[in-house]
């Protein structure tokens, strides 16, 4: 028990130490070499900017986070739904699934300007771009999860006379959970990217807009502060999903055997 706690602590300790050391090095180099703040502000200056301009940063952060979360939820719900269709319909599995897999190759970010043409510069474009890039990995992961049942388990369920519906609820869903969480972790990061990019392209609010605005004003500390706030938010969202995963996929946490 005690060794487990020490092990966990050392898991946290070393990456934290490295981060702190890198930040310190950055701070020292900026001060010693007199690097201009417009080029590279010191970490301390970024932190001060974050505190001083927190109203502005937060005002732009909320809409971006809101769009990210809505886009993420839509991607997850849609992805799971399409994955179920793919799992149960042979036509869709043979027709749609390869298309989805191949469409992964398209750099969907490049479509952003087209979305502005179609849907204008508002929230719709941000949301659609977020969903467009977050949806596919979710779908593919979910489809893999639903179909990756050990054939022995399927046979076992059939000999005990489980119906297709029971196989779905009692076996396919729990079996897919690790895959679903894997998909969600990818989707949340991609949803953030989708929202920020659409804010770069055309928007009057959002953290992407703020970053671009600060860049235009050569206000590098504000830019870095906004990027930091965005990164921390992304980290928090990812952390929430990881936490949920640890509770939901309890049988995997101490996986010591494959079968």
């Amino acid at each position: 028990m005690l060794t487990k706690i020490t092990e966990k602590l050392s898991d946290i300790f070393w990456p934290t130490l490295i981060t702190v050391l890198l930040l310190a090095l950055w701070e020292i180099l900026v001060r010693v070499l007199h690097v201009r703040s417009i080029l590279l502000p010191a970490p301390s200056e970024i932190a001060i900017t974050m505190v001083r301009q927190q109203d502005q940063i937060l005002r732009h952060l909320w809409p971006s986070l809101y769009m990210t979360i809505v886009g993420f939820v839509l991607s997850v719900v849609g992805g799971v739904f399409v994955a179920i269709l793919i799992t149960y319909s042979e036509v869709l599995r043979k027709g749609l699934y390869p298309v989805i897999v191949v469409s992964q190759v398209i750099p969907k970010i490049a479509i952003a300007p087209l979305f502005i043409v179609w849907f204008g510069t508002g929230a719709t474009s941000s949301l659609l771009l977020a969903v467009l890039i977050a949806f596919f990995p979710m779908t593919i992961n979910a489809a893999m999860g639903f179909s990756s049942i050990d054939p022995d388990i399927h046979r076992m369920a059939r000999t005990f006379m489980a119906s297709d519906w029971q196989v779905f609820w009692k076996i396919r869903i729990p079996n897919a959970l690790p895959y679903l969480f894997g998909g969600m972790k990818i989707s949340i990061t991609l949803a953030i990217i989708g929202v920020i990019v659409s804010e770069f392209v055309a928007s009057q609010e959002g953290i992407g807009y703020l970053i671009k605005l600060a860049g235009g004003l050569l206000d590098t500390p504000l830019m870095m502060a906004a990027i930091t706030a965005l990164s921390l938010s992304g980290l928090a969202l990812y952390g929430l999903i990881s936490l949920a995963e640890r509770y939901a996929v309890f049988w995997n946490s101490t996986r010591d055997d494959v079968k």
Partner: protein
Amino acid sequence: MDSLTGQTRAVPLLQVRNVRKVFQQTEAIRDVSIDVADGEFLSLLGPSGCGKSTLLMMIAGLTRPTEGAITIGGTPVVGPRPDIAVVFQQPVLLPWRTILDNVLFPVEVLRLPRKDYEDRAMELLAMAKIAEFAKHLPHQLSGGMRQRASICRALVRDPSILLMDEPFSALDAITRDEIGVELLRIWQVNRKTVIFVTHSIREAAFLSDRVLVMGRRPSTVAAEFKINLPRPRTIPMMEEEPFNHHSRELRKAIEASHAH
């Protein structure tokens, strides 16, 4: 065939009549007929890939014979039935369910009241000496314990026929002998009809009332042996002459079936 089996068989519970199975033009099983009496422990012995598992899956109702018929108590097998349970080579427990919930899975699937079966499940787990692990997850148990749990799961609905498909082949030799004794003890109490597929001569001779030796593809019943060892059987019996005599006979029959 009937003369060999003695007077324990009045009316056969399970009848396999002239069953043939062809997979995509490959004949896996050719003309197999077997009668199994109620309460009998029958082993199907043969090399890997000789079609004995296929035969078992046909009895379980998972696949249909190409020709011939399988009947239980006079009614033909057309699909899985509640009075047949299967133990597979792997325990195939659901990793997210506790051992007890895994054992109760067949009950849940048939929408039978869980309350009525919980005591029985615990009794079975106690008989298999894993009652203390009822609330554990499968990955916390050893391979042997997991396979015991899967036997409990097969017995929970009190089926009349238990089909076992090389259930101990993934276990180490010592665990195998132990779990074999346990199986016989549980069988003695519950008196199921057991059809046990194995490629181990030792296992077949130790467990069974009767052994059918099956040849290579297309497989048929090459020979039939009655095992006249007293019950309850114990591990020391495996060192004694009657057991060795049966083993030798089974080995000879297997070798003969390879010859042609």
